[in-house]
């Protein structure tokens, strides 16, 4: 994220010039990998717009018989509009999980950066150790535990594990240590503000732009976590869009048409791209705020 803005910085020019041949060679390598990256996504885009009767008879990488709206209508009509429900579920899991997780991470990171107490380093090291263990590792043990206490197949079974983000705590601690001045907190204390008030009114606004990164990171992580919801949820009215679509993909042979799954996959990518674009503005301002210091 930061790299995107960082990269816009111009670098000092070097003295030596480069031969046109290596320039061309470099461009060729970069272009080749760009094509490799783009072709599958291009295929998805093109195929999502094709009329279902012409999926296999027309050139796979070029538009033909445009019928995107028809396909979208089909996606939302399939199985009484369950697709809309899936999208809504995904949004609930991601927004709910990422919001709570960001607040918890900010509080914990702030405490670890701005207070000294016994066991602080130990707590931080344990959290750091947990960063190295991927979320997927916890999914199956969580499932075993949740089925013991009959929590499986509820919204909570996916939401609760989603609100913990050790990486978010790590980032929050780095940000809090770097950007929240001790003097400001001291001033607040002298003015008689409570610690909670100082956190919400002083520390949070300073950390806010950076916390967008924490939020986004967790949002993407939840949207991408497939194993957890696939284990926890049986009922398809609770499933996020990833699980639902994988299910449709599997039932191709049972008559879920190609165009529906492909267009559904195309549609499910949208919210994430929008989230990326919307939040990019905040990353920029976050960087600007950091550079003033």
């Amino acid at each position, binding site marked *: *994220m930061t790299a995107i803005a960082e990269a816009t910085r111009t670098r000092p020019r070097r003295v030596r010039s480069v031969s046109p041949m290596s320039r061309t060679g*470099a461009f060729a390598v970069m272009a080749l990998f760009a094509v490799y*990256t783009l072709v599958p996504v291009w295929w998805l885009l093109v195929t999502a717009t094709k009329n279902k009767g012409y999926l296999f008879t027309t050139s796979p990488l070029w538009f033909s018989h445009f019928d995107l709206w028809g396909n979208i209508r089909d996606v939302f009509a399939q199985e009484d509009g369950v697709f809309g429900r899936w999208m809504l579920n995904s949004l609930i899991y991601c927004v709910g999980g990422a919001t709570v997780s960001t607040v*918890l991470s900010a*509080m914990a990171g702030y405490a670890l950066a701005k*207070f000294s107490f016994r066991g602080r380093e130990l707590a931080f090291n344990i959290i750091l150790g947990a960063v190295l263990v991927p979320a997927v590792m916890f999914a199956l043990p969580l499932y075993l535990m949740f089925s013991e206490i009959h929590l499986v197949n509820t919204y909570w079974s996916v939401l609760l594990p989603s609100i913990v983000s050790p990486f978010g705590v790590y980032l929050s601690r780095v940000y809090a240590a770097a950007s929240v001045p001790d003097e400001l907190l001291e001033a607040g204390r002298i003015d008689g503000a409570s610690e909670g008030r100082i956190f919400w009114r002083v520390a949070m606004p300073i950390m806010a732009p950076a916390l967008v990164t924490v939020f986004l990171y967790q949002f993407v992580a939840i949207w991408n976590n*497939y*194993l957890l919801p696939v284990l926890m949820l049986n009922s398809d009215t609770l499933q996020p869009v990833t699980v639902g679509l994988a299910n449709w993909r599997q039932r191709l042979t049972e008559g879920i048409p190609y165009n529906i799954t492909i267009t559904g996959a195309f549609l499910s990518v949208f919210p994430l791209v929008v989230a990326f674009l919307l939040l990019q503005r905040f990353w920029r301002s976050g960087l600007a705020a950091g550079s003033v210091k």
Partner: protein
Amino acid sequence: MAITAAPADRLARPPAGSPPPRGTGRRRTRSALLFLAPFGLVFVTMMVAPIGYALYQSFFRVERSGLGLAAPTNAFAGAANYLAALRDSEFMASFGRVLLIGVVQVPLMLGIALLLALLLDARFAAFKRTFRMIYFLPYALPGVIAAIMWSFLYQPSISPFTAAFKHFGLDVDFLSGDLVLGSIGNMMTWGYTGFNMLIIYSALQAIPGELTEAAGLDGCGWWRIVWHVKIPAVRPALILTAVFSIIGTAQLYNDPEILHQVAPTVSSSYTPIMAAQQSAAINNYNYAATQSIILAVLTFVLSFGFLKLTQRKGAQT
């Protein structure tokens, strides 16, 4: 995210720049713990407890007596589950597969990521911003959705690639037993090269301009600057991406799981996590717990071992 690149070398020590605040009264400690408590509570219940529960479960087995009329009882099994897992050839084979992918795909992917990052960082590159955005695009696609997309792209009846190869007289089935492991490796390379590239790239951007400039004035060509200045400077970022990739490969699930649904060559216990899930699906919870613990321990040993190994090597040079 890219921001992890800069603090990579800080993993070992607490972030600098914040001297512990003065006046550590009891009131302060109490409010610090209050700030930590909500996260701590969720951390313990959602991360520590499940692992503890799985560990506990892995030492037990369900015993059904007689005709299964009486309620099954939990009996202590000692290391029996672990020994069974070690003798389970399917489970061991799943480790072999991820290991093979890890040994071949991870270096390949990181090599490409490093090359692209170096080219993007080079002064003579054109359309940098466009290329950077394109490379990062797969990361914006949810892993499962990308896997579904590739599953169509591999399916012989509709794959544009199969059709293209056929045009040249080649009959390629990406889902055949010989190729399917490579196909999965390709899905991972496609999905994560850009992400790794961005981490390495932001580390490259942090190299002081004077350093490369001085080397340039001394008559170093691009390659020598890359080899002697840039690559050593981004070592921490390379280690970070390697550790992330090792962890990612060990927990490989989405891609083979989606392919499993459409290709008979990908078994239901293709990777360790799939094997554990399979055990849970047939209600063998104790064995599923055992498999999860083995996988978690091995992943931790591998990534931590790699981190330690590279750190020691770095200290020597």
